[in-house]
């Protein structure tokens, strides 16, 4: 069995869910799944009625240029989802800063990321302009106390 800790970059302290993620369609049809995977065209809001029992949402990025997953992540966090939100697929170091801001706290890229590059990418921006659910204080709030 593949050691999840080896392939997944996580920013959470809890134990990773080992259940395989089911499709959104399968998820809405069964009552006991803990993990679900969202594909780019699927509506993250369809998960909201069952948010409390979900412990892992995987958001698939078949190609890094398809940015629908960023909105899916924010929609879930804004609705109060606190479980693991994992970006999987064509996830590159240059996108993970934005992904963290949108609420992703785990990454399972097709190609492993260089740990040094990740650290540089995540510490690159001293501040941010926008408010999201990541808790960072936007520059315009810093200006006005």
């Amino acid at each position, binding site marked *: 069995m593949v050691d999840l800790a080896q392939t997944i970059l996580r920013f959470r302290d809890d134990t990773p869910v080992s259940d395989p993620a089911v499709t959104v369609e399968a998820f809405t049809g069964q009552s006991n799944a803990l993990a679900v995977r969202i594909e780019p065209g699927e509506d993250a809001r369809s998960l909201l009625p069952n948010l409390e029992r979900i412990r892992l949402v995987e958001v698939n990025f078949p190609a890094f*240029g398809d940015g629908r997953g*960023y*909105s899916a992540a924010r929609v879930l966090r804004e609705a109060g989802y606190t479980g693991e939100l994992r970006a999987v697929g064509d996830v590159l170091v*240059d996108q993970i800063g934005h992904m963290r801001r*949108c609420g992703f706290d785990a990454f399972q890229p097709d190609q492993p990321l260089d740990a040094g590059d990740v650290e540089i990418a995540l510490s*690159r921006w001293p501040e941010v302009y*926008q408010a999201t*659910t990541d808790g960072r204080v936007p*520059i315009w709030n810093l200006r006005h106390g």
Partner: protein
Amino acid sequence: MYKYDQWDQAMVDARVAEFRDQCQRRIEGKLTEDQFKPLRLMNGLYLQLHAYMLRVAIPYGTLSGAQMRALGDIADKFDRKYGHFTTRQNIQYNWIKLEDAGDILAALAKVEMHAIQTSGNCIRNISSDHFAGAAADEVVDPRPYAELLRQWSSFHPEFSYLPRKFKFAVIASETDRAAMRLHDIGINIVRNDAGELGAAFYVGGGMGRTPMIAPLINGFVPLDRLITYAEACLRVYNRYGRRDNKYKARIKILVHELGAEEYTRQVEEEFALLLAQNIEPPFAELERIRTYFEDPAFAADAPDELDRSDPDFAVWSDRNTHPHKAPGYVSAVISLKPVGGIPGDATADQMRLMADLAGEYSFDECRVTHTQNIVLPHVRKADLFALWQKLEAAGLGTPNLDQVGDIIACPGLDYCSLANARSIPIAQQISQRFAANGKGEILGELKLKISGCINACGHHHAGHIGILGVDKKGVENYQLSLGGSEAEDTSLGKITGRGFDEAGIVDAVETSVDVYLAQRQNGERFLDTYRRIGMEPFKEALYG
């Protein structure tokens, strides 16, 4: 003018460091060209036909003298001693080496400039009215709202991988000088009956291969909800805009396919949810930004008379100035369209001269227009003659604002890897033709716009006369269209019929102009005559 504080500067400095790192990783092979491409594009670096092209952002088209001077110095040091001002109020350098890109960004950062998001499928530079803060007819200066949107859209975490590029324009007058309704989102700052300011949102306009005029989706968004509303508009687009076909990926297609009413409903629904998220900047931030755009110290006693005894000067001042809100002042337009020149090009020396003139005559401020000219927004009428003499001496005094020679042209096949045909030589031949035959002097306002491919960077759909270059079995061919307008009477031009070769298109423009001259009544413009008499008389003259 807006000035960076420590936060703004830190963001731009971080970007320079990031891009140097990305270039380095590309050189080391850690990034493939496919992976590097979207990253360099978000820094405005394109690979063109002959070299890299760097596009530098000029937010809402406003430049200080020091910034204009720095642009000239960059042209000298890193390019072939010239630059090209664009229809998005930006500047492009056409002969850049990849290894210099980091140094150029560092030079720009020193004068509070950057190339952030000047390309890529993200929110691009915010454009505005080039007479903002000066025009006699504006409700309010639109630039504080553009600056707020600039900050919000910079490195936006959710909207950096949109289906397609995304362009905002912000104006604040009934007269539209920024082609507002031909943008993905056009915002007009308006005052309601209660005297409050708000933002009218027009969404889903654009040119390209499927030109559309943006419908109004909300006539009054309160200013303390501006960012939240914009976020809702973008989120609906990011989630549901088409990604299966890049030619159908702009928001105009989404709005068209859903219908403006359904798109609006979805935006309003998202907006209601986002309001609860409290993402709007504090109103104090808008007030802080506004303080940077307060009027300069206009002289209360500036004389309002103009000495028009020099006839050449009188022509230039009639054509190339615009009424100012302060008595005794005008906005002066420096034409970058000399007869036979390349529209929008300026040499390094000309840029430095314009920087000096901005300092001497215009409170150290200049503007780039979407028609590829430069504005000195606040010039005393008493100084206008001296200014004109200096412009004349530098080849910058062409009196042709909004005339047939004031042509918008894209770089075309001389530079661009997307082009099907050359644009620049057509523009040059037309301006030479109408200078030589004297008709240019009697035509009045005539907006002529040329694109070298269907992407319409030269705004041909919105030209009173539009020219589109296409490839016809390996030969350049040019389609003629009539009746477009990018102003408040926005309209899209109609194609006259079969296309023309290079010599034929110049003749066809003259033939169309002759129809106008024969038919015009009571001093009407070319566009007015066309709208009155319709296409038939033009077709008859062109095709017999």
